[in-house]
């Protein structure tokens, strides 16, 4: 990176450190922070959406829809995350490839499962075998987002299901008295009021989601924990310009600081949102706000 970095062995102290911290490998490490943040930025709203539809389905008056919603919540919440990540992603990937295989290569006669192997024709590969590496990475990342969204969507659905029930019955009765249909009452009365009940639970989920990102490496995405472990490991002078001992402690300490800062910022933000949502609500928080200026 810097011009004086050509011979790291001759350097010492801060100059050495400045060179060390700007190697291509470290750049990949810094970049992976972006990957994690991007994952969170996409996953959170998608999971919220899944949760909302899950919760709406679970309290639906149409029986099959209700079954679907309740099964989704119960099933996904009950399976350990790590098992879900290992099993579901491979199954999903194979399902996509199997479907493409059936459509794109109808003339193929060999079985897809050959012993341990899962064999589809080249055209059905997802992504294509000839695709550049970034396509593979993006595909892996998309699978990761989808899996995270399904898992956390189930928890969010349960939280929102509870929150929808927590909205005072009197509010809904009033809506009915005004002649609103079920749908209107749901949209105009229930949904705007449920957030205040859902937020503590959703906030918790957000915190758990932040800390669950190291599961990314299970899906082949190189995340911050992978890089910290890789770079913290001791390096001998034969294989690197910057030999050092076991520095994993320092790298993980940096991760600790990152996660603590990030969760703290989230807490502050969530508190603000809570304040806003409480405004004018028939809760103790809302009541306290109403009385405060007086």
């Amino acid at each position, binding site marked *: 990176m810097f011009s004086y970095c050509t011979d790291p062995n001759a350097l010492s102290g801060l100059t050495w450190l400045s060179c060390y911290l700007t190697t291509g490998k470290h*750049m990949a490490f810094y970049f992976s922070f972006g990957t994690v943040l991007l994952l969170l930025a996409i996953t959170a709203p998608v999971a919220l959406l899944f949760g909302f539809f899950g919760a709406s389905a679970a309290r639906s008056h149409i029986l099959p829809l209700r079954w679907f919603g309740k099964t989704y919540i119960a099933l996904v919440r009950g399976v350990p995350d790590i098992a879900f990540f290992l099993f579901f992603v491979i199954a999903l990937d194979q399902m996509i490839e199997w479907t493409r295989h059936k459509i794109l290569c109808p003339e193929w006669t060999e079985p897809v499962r*050959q012993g341990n192997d899962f064999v589809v024709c080249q055209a059905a590969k997802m992504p294509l075998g000839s695709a550049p590496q970034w396509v593979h990475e993006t595909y892996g990342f998309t699978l990761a987002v989808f899996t995270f969204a399904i898992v956390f969507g189930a928890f969010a659905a349960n939280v929102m299901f509870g929150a929808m029930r927590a909205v005072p019955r009197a509010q809904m009765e009033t809506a009915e008295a005004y002649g609103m249909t079920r749908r209107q009452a749901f949209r105009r009365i229930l949904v705007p009021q449920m957030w205040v009940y859902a937020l503590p639970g959703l906030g918790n989920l957000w915190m758990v989601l932040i800390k669950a990102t190291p599961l990314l490496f299970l899906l082949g995405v190189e995340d911050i924990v992978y890089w910290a472990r890789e770079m913290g*490991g*001791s390096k001998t002078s*034969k294989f690197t310009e910057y030999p050092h001992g076991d520095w994993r402690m320092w790298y993980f300490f940096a991760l600790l600081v990152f996660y603590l800062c990030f969760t703290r910022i989230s807490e502050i933000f969530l508190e603000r949102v809570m304040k806003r949502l409480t405004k004018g609500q028939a809760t103790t928080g809302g009541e306290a706000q109403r009385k405060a200026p007086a």
Partner: protein
Amino acid sequence: MNKLLLTTAALALSASFAMAETTRLGTEGAYPPYNFINDSGEVDGFERELGDELCKRAKLTCEWVTNDWDSIIPNLVSGNYDVIIAGMSITDERDEVIDFTQNYTQPDPSGYLAASADVDIKNGVIAAQTGTIQASFVASTGATLVEFATPEETIAAVRNGEADAVLADKAYLGPVADEDDGLVLLEQEELIGGGVGLGIRESDGELKATLDAAIQSMKDDGSLNAMIEKWEIGVKF
């Protein structure tokens, strides 16, 4: 004549389209000198050089992928990459699940790295990486086996006293022992494994034959020996 030229050109073009198929090489990237991530963040090492040369000889376009050791076989079988090139010794147990090419290193004795020379290997605590030939070897002896997910952690276990010694390929332990005064390579060695080969899906016979031929040609002209010597992998062919 013109038509003939055009047809050959078209044929050549379609042939080169078929060649554009990428072969994905999966490695661990944490086991120097076999494979590791270098300072610029790329896969490097003996197997990087070997793999690139094999691809050149076999006229394949290759792409490097890193994967956790734990799930390196399942991911090959489900088609995430096409070749395992990760210092994987050929064993009967693995051969039941995947296929191997011919070996590109000689069966290399595994060595013990310990904090002192008078460690009791027979009854002590021995660290090894999960799912390696060394781990199954230690499990079959009287010693207590502790397993770790990465090679790095096995060494750390000896440094902090959790294990008495670590059993691994000598090529990996050598450079570590050279630079750490607190660790010594023991004299005792264990002859396990049948050399390292490329892991390939059992249904991928064509790729296996191509790579087998490429390895053979490297063995024949001595270029493989030169690489083994350069990276200090062990005995030459």
